[in-house]
């Protein structure tokens, strides 16, 4: 049989993503974003996101089919993010996917968004090594995973115990007067800042914390430290060097994330680290990860920034792998699960 042709739908947050893949070959990756509508609220407003998904759905499916130069009827299966994410937003994508499945008479796979973030790298760098360690860093979560089999066996090693990495970027951006979403603006400001200007704390890295939270991360202490530092400087009448603060803050996050990720690889004797999620688009994280992985002889895989953020291609990539390995499709009546656990790859 030729490689399966899969259409993937992603609506867990504010991007309406439709991706089409054949096996591990990317044919189309169309994204409609409602991020501009949320910017003035400083965060994603679920109802606005859900309304935007509904409006964007058919046009985005149409665009993806035309980019991929396929007919919907040619698709072998539909894959869709069933969780985790915003409940109302997930529901629009899942309803669309189910309708496609019924209209076309094709199987449907409700898939885990986090597993899809890992699997998307197959489109860029070929089949995943098994096992791999995966680090997912975004506005919604920060997780370290051990991945023996991306289609059915994913183990959570650690996660954030408070804020997600991307959330920390957004909050610090706000404190620094930078726009939402904060990640890209902090990255940009940091380019001309000194990462060693201020020694911000590295959460959960002390020996005491490591005993209990070896692979967990925490960013709320860092966030408070940055806010307090700025306050103190302002009170002293000093002007804030935004670029230095951004660079030092970013350095602290990147340092903690990579320490934990490398430790997870070494401790589990795994030779490959996959990094995904919106924060994986951060330029400092990418450079530093390359260097540290090289030092420890670990193969590093990070998809290009466009595939790190939420998109339909990642969902399709996981769908293709599920079909290829003969995994069971979901029941048509499956429910969305806004807090879907990573141990469930398929709904």
């Amino acid at each position: 049989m030729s490689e399966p042709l899969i259409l993937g739908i992603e609506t867990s947050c504010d991007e309406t993503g439709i991706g089409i893949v054949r096996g591990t070959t990317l044919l189309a990756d169309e994204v409609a974003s409602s991020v501009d509508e949320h910017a003035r609220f400083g965060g994603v407003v679920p109802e606005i996101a859900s309304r935007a998904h509904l409006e964007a759905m058919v046009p985005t499916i149409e665009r993806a089919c035309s980019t991929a130069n396929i007919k919907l009827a040619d698709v072998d299966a539909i894959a869709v993010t069933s969780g985790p994410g915003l409940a109302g937003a997930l529901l629009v994508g899942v309803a669309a996917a189910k309708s496609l499945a019924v209209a076309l008479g094709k199987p449907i796979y409700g898939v885990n968004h986090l597993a899809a973030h890992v699997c998307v790298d197959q489109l860029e760098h070929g089949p995943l090594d098994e096992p791999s360690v995966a680090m997912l860093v975004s506005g919604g979560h920060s997780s370290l995973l051990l991945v023996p089999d991306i289609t059915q066996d994913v183990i959570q090693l650690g996660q954030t115990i408070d804020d997600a990495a991307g959330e920390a970027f957004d909050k610090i951006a706000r404190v620094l007067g930078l726009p939402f979403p904060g990640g890209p603006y902090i990255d940009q400001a940091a380019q001309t800042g000194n990462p060693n200007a201020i020694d911000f704390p590295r959460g959960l890295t002390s020996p005491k914390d490591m005993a209990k939270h070896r692979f967990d991360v925490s960013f709320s202490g860092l966030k408070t430290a940055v806010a307090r530092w700025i306050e103190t400087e302002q009170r002293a009448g000093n002007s804030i060097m935004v670029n230095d603060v951004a660079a030092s803050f970013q350095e602290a996050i990147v340092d903690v994330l990579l320490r934990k990720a490398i430790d997870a690889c070494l401790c589990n004797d795994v030779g490959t680290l996959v990094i995904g999620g919106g924060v994986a688009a951060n330029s400092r994280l990418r450079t530093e990860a390359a260097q540290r992985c090289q030092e420890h002889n670990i193969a590093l895989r990070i998809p290009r920034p466009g595939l790190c953020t939420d998109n339909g291609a990642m969902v399709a990539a996981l769908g293709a792998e599920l079909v290829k390995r003969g995994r069971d499709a979901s029941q048509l009546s499956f429910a969305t699960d806004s807090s879907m656990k990573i141990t469930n790859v398929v709904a």
Partner: protein
Amino acid sequence: MNVLAIDTSVGVSVAILRSNDEVTQSQAIDHGMQGELTAELISKVVSDSGLKIEEITDVVVGVGPGPFTGLRVGLVTAAVFAHARSIPIHGICSLDAIAFDYAKPCVVVTDARRKELYWARYDGIRTGEPQVSKPEVIVAQFPDAKFVGPGAQLYPDSINGNLMELKAGSLAKLFVSGSAQLVSVSPMYLRKPDAVEPTIRKSVL
């Protein structure tokens, strides 16, 4: 003409109306189950009707008003289905289905939560845009009206009318009758999003 009709403004209701006027209908009154049930019920009514999917010629969808989250399921399901089959889609105000069944002058009311009702007045046809109001306000405006619909007994102190279900089969029949007031295929929300309280960005990566 073989019509698939979908309405998720009050629970889920789907129906097939065949060219021989036979109606196959299935519904679930549970609120909040639209995401689980809509596609499955479509699959069921299509097979119960004896039609093949490719014999469906039109999709009719109830565009509300109704609680947003569930309402969107019907809209996106209908829009995607019509697109995938390359067949036309037609929007009808959901309340019109009940007025069509009642067939006499009335005010149709459905549950809008927050102690309000969605409503529209009918006198042969719908006499204005649907609205959302408190029951006592509606009754003050139409003291002598006949109230019908799923919301007709929610607030018996002000409105005590005829309980009637919203059936997708009636949407289909109304469409086929040629007398439907077709509207754009987008949800009648009637309320703005609650967007004052910013939530933390829960995206994902």
